[in-house]
């Protein structure tokens, strides 16, 4: 038995906005009978270009129906630009959460929304050049990449829960793992919240203490923070580092890299003149 929230049950038993809008401004169909779930989304705009009405027809389990219904409720009253910002997480949140194994239902909603907006704009699909990774469920590399990025997924099983990819024959598991590895090594540019100067200084100190110094000490070296000016971190090398010819490589490739990853991508590490 699935642990559905009361809201999922309510939106399954009494779904809002079932049906199809005649002469819609945007329409999309995603999923298939073979996959076990499918969603047809239609919407209509008012004179201010806001979504006046949205309707769905869904073939699928309770959470697919509830996610579709939630999506139509969420986007009503939104502009196209606002609607484009709706994520699968927003749909899941609206329902008070979904079981992990059912997150793909919220992803289906997001996909339908994007496709319907593309249809409205008459633009070619954004994800041209996408390659099918999972043959069983027809999931592309772009879809997997996005699910991994937006939901911070780390295992093939997660990806299957969110996109269905890999849930069939299993032949694509290696390819999915590669995508996960690739996405997770991307620098997380916009993921970090903005830090105040004080927070940033504290985070730099902590990061050096926890992540950097132990490695350096392992090799008999050390660094000391001399000053932090904006994004410039001025350090002095100590111990083995101070005499090591490769110390500036260590500073750039290790110290700076770690700080970029863990604090801010704009950090620059400089060595105080000896």
């Amino acid at each position, binding site marked *: 038995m699935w642990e559905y929230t009361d809201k999922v049950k309510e939106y399954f038993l009494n779904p809002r906005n*079932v049906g199809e809008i005649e002469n819609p401004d945007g329409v999309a169909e995603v999923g298939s009978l073979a996959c076990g779930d499918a969603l047809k989304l239609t919407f209509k705009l008012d004179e201010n270009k806001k979504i006046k009405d949205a309707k769905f027809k869904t073939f699928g389990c309770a959470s697919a129906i509830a996610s579709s219904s939630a999506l139509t409720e969420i986007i009503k009253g939104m502009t196209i630009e606002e609607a484009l910002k709706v994520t699968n997480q927003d749909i899941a949140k609206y329902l008070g959460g979904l079981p992990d194994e059912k997150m793909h239902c919220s992803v289906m909603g997001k996909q339908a929304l994007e496709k319907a907006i593309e249809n409205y704009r008459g633009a070619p699909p954004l994800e041209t050049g996408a390659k099918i990774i999972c043959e069983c469920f027809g999931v592309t590399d772009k879809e997997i990449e996005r699910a991994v990025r937006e939901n911070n997924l780390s295992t093939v099983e997660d990806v299957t829960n969110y996109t269905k990819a890999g849930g*069939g024959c299993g032949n694509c598991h290696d390819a999915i793992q590669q995508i996960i590895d690739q996405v997770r090594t991307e620098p997380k540019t916009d993921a970090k919240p903005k830090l105040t100067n004080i927070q940033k200084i504290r985070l730099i100190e902590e990061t050096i203490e926890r992540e950097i110094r132990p490695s350096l000490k392992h090799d008999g070296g050390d660094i000391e923070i001399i000053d932090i000016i904006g994004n410039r971190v001025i350090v002095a090398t100590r111990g083995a580092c101070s005499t090591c010819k490769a110390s500036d490589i260590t500073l750039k490739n290790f110290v700076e890299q770690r700080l970029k990853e863990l604090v801010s991508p704009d950090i620059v590490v400089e060595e105080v003149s000896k």
Partner: protein
Amino acid sequence: MNTIYLDNNATTQVAEEVLAVMMPYFREFYGNPSSMHTFGGQVGQKIRTAREQVAALLGAMPEEIIFTSCGTESDNAAIRSALMTRPDKKHIITSRVEHPAIRALCAHLATQGYRVTELPVDKNGLLDLENLGKSMTPDTAVVSLMWGNNETGVIFPVEAAARLAHEKGILFHTDAVQSTGKIPINLKNNVIDMLSISGHKLHAPKGIGVLYIRRGTKFSPFMIGGHQEKQRRGGTENTPSVIGLGKACELAAKNMEKENTYVARLRDKLERELLKRITQSRVNGDPANRLPNTTNISFEYVEGEAILLLMNELGICASSGSACTSGSLQPSHVLRAMGVPFTMAHGSIRFSLSINNTEAEIDFVIDKMPAIIERLRGMSPYWNSSQPACKTQ
């Protein structure tokens, strides 16, 4: 709200008579049957009676009955014993539609140096014995085929299969968890070497099972410990449940005719009326070779989990072979092995009845199901007022 329980292949209600005979063995007669004193010894006597009751239902001898903790343990004990007693043989034959107790075990053994052949079934879920004949090799240690399928109720010709295996000197095991108590089984009339039963499928409690081992069959125990069960299964006997299972087997023998007349008639009525009232529906599994209590029906263009949850709102319990109910993304391995299209498998519902079901319950379900399917089809993009909106791809 009344519960209408049509999920008896999942588990059954403990019979009143079964519970009654069990109760004294929790507090009053709590002795250990292995004890020297009369207080324990008298429980041992009851276990002997239970063993005779189980043996009687199967046409077996009491010493051929080993009590275990469940059907899965019995299956594990049987297959592992076959392999342990034939250490030079590394091949196992089973089918694509077995219960996970056998399927997952064989998949595990395949990683341990054994070769596993899974025999296919046809679109009606039937086995072709010719395939079995072709698959047996001098390296084959054991053939394990289920007697009745838990999802479709389809019956395999296990007695004929056992004969074929014996001609080649191969051990034969059958998982008879679903068929015991539903169709007559007489081990005097066949050459089956090992057979598994689960108590809770025939109105005994959960946590008790039986492994039948034909006399003269070499056995290597799975559970090693004390001398219980003639050193074939260590562990203090689950005395109340053993005694309950004995009673349940006695009742099953008595109710066998009712199962095959009354229950079969209710099942047939349910099936016939649902197919008549709901378009684009069909039965999965050969109607001519089925357990009397089971029907598996696919409703096209709707998804099984959604159907079950709407049934649940009315207190009706059943199960589904859809992907969404399994926790995986693929529909039931049984339906896939039968080549049931995904589009049908996703909307499959298994109704499994028992002698406790009433005609009124069946009529209620017949009355309510069409509206449930119609309601979901009304939400489906593949359905346009009373007909499919497109051809299934």
